[in-house]
């Protein structure tokens, strides 16, 4: 049967999409009877090739099913057909081997084109399907749950339990109502898939997985190892999310977005002044400057120092970046205690920052864990820290007075956030003289004179360059063939892309016949490698066609 897969949205490595078989459209990720879709799979005999097989064995023995729409892929042999299904054979053997799971996944992501539906056979259970989805799988089958049925095990999101241990009334699904364990198990899997889809849709699958992994040491290990594979994780992490980043687990500190933010603050961003910095505590309210405490800080500092917020999990947030994702979009459980790992990571971020951006003076208007972090970083950098908080209360009048006094005589500089934001977002030092931020809170923009250069996305804080704005920037280009886009730019039309582009980034589409402003729907590698799907959501098109 001919089946057709289309990615509709992304959340890190995870995708939501549709898998169409004839008339039937399934929302992915989902479980279905894949053998019914690709009947030639059932006809394969003596064709086993383990994921751990070597190149010689793979070359000799990896055979393909008759139907070309489905391809068996292997870390040593990618080949997935466009529109079809990449069958990662024997993936279920990886579930208890987290180190191999992650290493093999990384190899597969290099080898397998991004536009096929990734199918993990015999692997999915309600207890692991969020994790499988998190690692990029779109399709599952009922083999795992049916096997549990054969074993008399009752599937739940928390694991598989002997059906005898299940109290009546635990589940009131159609299967349980009918006393049909097999139906219960299949419905439980479909329900788990639906939950995963919902979280992919909200772009909060990471949060779901940080929850759902928790009863399985293998999932926890794999989650941690994936975070260590920063290149793979970062390439998939979007520029921004439409939701809060809930940093509710230790692992949240290791999210690619957190590390990327910290890396950009060190590597891309340049502070607007280098004479004096004030390190400030964060606030629950975001952006910080809307909080009562920060209004006091801003009034006290009064432009006489560069304001830099020390926060967990992001580390260092210069005032200019406080509105951009994820600086303006995270929540943490507040116990008042920063643990040693937290302090250690954050001190590392701050050390890197202070080494990359040396200031004449650094004032720590901090207390508690943040002060510890600042002291550790200052010691690592060999700089002297001036502390201005009295009795551990940064907003107390005595503390504010000490801060005011510490800043006596410093130069007042009123700078806009534009240069900092452009450096952070586009990796470029732009001459911003004459650029000004104006507009109501929900419709702010960067003007030069009367010309709008950058609209500021009120949700994400990202700058959205107009054609005029792009004239100040040189990167983040997507190159297309010789056509004028009507609507969005599709992946096949893309001939090249700045490798720094991530899903959600603002990009300038350039081709022989047209330019367009827009937002990347996929990362650079994917838009170059994919043969289908929207690459750039176009905002405005400018035709460059000459009269012929």
């Amino acid at each position: 049967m001919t089946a057709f897969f289309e990615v509709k949205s992304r959340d890190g490595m995870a995708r939501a999409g549709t898998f169409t078989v004839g008339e039937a459209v399934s929302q992915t990720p989902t479980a279905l009877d894949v053998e019914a879709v690709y009947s030639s799979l059932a006809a394969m005999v003596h064709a086993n090739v383990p994921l751990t097989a070597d190149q010689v064995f793979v070359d000799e023995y990896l055979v393909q099913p008759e139907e070309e729409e489905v391809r068996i892929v292997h870390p040593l042999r990618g080949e997935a057909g466009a529109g079809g299904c990449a069958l990662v054979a024997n993936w279920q053997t990886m579930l208890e081997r987290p180190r191999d799971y992650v290493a093999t996944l990384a190899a597969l992501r290099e080898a397998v084109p991004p536009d096929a539906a990734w199918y993990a056979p015999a692997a999915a259970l309600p207890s692991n399907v969020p994790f499988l989805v998190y690692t990029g799988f779109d399709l599952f089958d009922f083999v795992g749950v049916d096997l549990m049925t054969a074993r008399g095990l009752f599937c739940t999101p928390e694991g598989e339990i002997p059906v005898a241990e299940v109290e009546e009334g635990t589940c009131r699904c159609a299967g349980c109502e009918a006393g049909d364990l097999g139906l219960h198990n299949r419905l439980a899997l479909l329900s788990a898939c639906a939950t995963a889809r919902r979280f992919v849709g909200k772009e909060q699958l990471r949060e779901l997985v940080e929850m759902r992994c928790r009863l399985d040491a293998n999932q926890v290990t794999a989650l941690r190892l994936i975070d260590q594979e920063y290149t793979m994780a970062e390439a998939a992490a979007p520029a921004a999310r439409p939701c809060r980043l809930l940093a509710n687990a230790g692992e949240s500190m290791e999210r690619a977005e957190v590390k990327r933010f910290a890396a950009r603050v060190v590597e891309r961003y340049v502070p607007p002044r280098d004479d004096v910095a004030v390190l400030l505590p964060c606030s629950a309210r975001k952006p910080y400057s809307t909080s009562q405490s920060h209004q006091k800080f801003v009034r006290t500092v009064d432009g006489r120092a560069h304001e830099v917020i020390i926060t967990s999990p992001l580390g260092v947030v210069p005032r200019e970046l406080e509105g951009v994702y994820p600086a303006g979009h995270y929540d943490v459980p507040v116990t008042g205690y920063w643990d040693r790992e937290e302090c250690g990571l954050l001190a590392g971020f701050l050390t890197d920052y202070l080494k990359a951006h040396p200031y004449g003076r650094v004032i720590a208007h901090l207390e508690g864990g943040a002060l510890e972090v600042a002291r550790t970083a200052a010691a690592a950098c060999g700089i002297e820290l001036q502390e201005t908080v009295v009795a551990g209360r940064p907003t107390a009048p005595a503390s504010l007075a000490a801060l005011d006094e510490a800043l006596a005589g410093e130069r007042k500089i009123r700078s806009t956030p534009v240069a900092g934001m452009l450096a952070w977002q586009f990796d470029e030092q732009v001459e911003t003289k004459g650029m000004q931020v104006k507009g109501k809170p929900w419709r702010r923009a960067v003007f030069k004179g009367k010309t709008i250069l950058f609209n500021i996305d009120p949700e994400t804080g990202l700058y959205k360059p107009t054609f005029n704005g792009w004239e100040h920037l040189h990167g983040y280009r997507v190159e297309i063939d010789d056509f004028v886009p009507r609507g969005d730019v599709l992946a096949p039309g893309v001939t090249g892309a700045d490798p720094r582009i991530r899903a959600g980034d603002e990009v300038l589409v350039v081709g022989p016949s047209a330019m367009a402003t827009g937002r990347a729907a996929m990362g650079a590698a994917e838009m170059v490698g994919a043969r289908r799907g929207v690459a750039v959501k176009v905002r405005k098109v400018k035709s460059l066609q000459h009269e012929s």
Partner: protein
Amino acid sequence: MVSMEPIKPLAAWKGKDRYEGSVLDSLTVIFKSGGCSYRRCLMCGYRFEGYFGASPEEILAQMRGQLAWVEEHFDLASVQMVKIFTSGSFLDPVEVPPAFREDVCRAFAGKVVVVETRPEYVEEEGTAAMVAALDTGAYETPLHIAVGLETTDDAIREKSIRKGFTFADFIAASRRAQAAGAGVKGYLLLKPMFLTEKEAVEDMKKSIREVTPYCGMISMNACTVQRGTELEKAWKERTYRPPYLWSILEVLADISGDVPVFCDPVGGGATRGPHNCGTCDRELVQGINDFALTGDVELVRALLDEVECGCKKEWEYVMEHERPWCMPLTR
């Protein structure tokens, strides 16, 4: 002549074996030899056993010492059958000096002797000499040549075992042995690597059918995971599961025809050997052992049909749904 001091062989034990309708007291000896000349089989745990690098004389002396040990430790008069293994081929003259064959024939003359070898070492003249040396008239066929064919499917044998010979090689060897007056015993392997449970069972059923014309005896070995093998690596990587005991029963229950099929479920019930869920393993292993002495297929069918265990549904599911691209489904 070198010393004849007794040396303990790799292993030696007494047991019982069914032979032409009656049960014989048997002795099994595994001699340490010069070592297998081939040693590429994926599941073989004896590949590195042997006096590698020793001179033929040294090997001969060592093996004679082992034979002396056997003669000293067992009451050979009470033994009617002797099964001889090395870590390779008994008939490989490099591995086992031909002079040792004569010693063996002298020692075990008048008994049923089974020697294991790869087929390329079976040649008519030497075999006939052994038959003559063993023959006291006690048994019609005093010598049986056992060959590890493993499967009649050449493709499986190459991919899953890397055995290095073909079914045709086996048939030819079988003909040579029979021409020399020896019997032929075929070893078949249930579930080598890279086969689903069902592929393994079907391959075994087919192999038994196909090999029957060339064998007087068939021995089915259920695959076990031995240390230091490729198979062990696969097993640890969870890409291999030994066969279910149910699968052994399924094969045995399918037997028809006259050639006796034996199965000694070595390691049965252990995670490295053929096993079910742990609950029913003892009972089924016992049944399979009983079958080896009685050849009673009905007994096997009764076990298969009547033993109730939770894992039987699992096995049935695995038989039906395990595929080359999603296997093994269980551990």
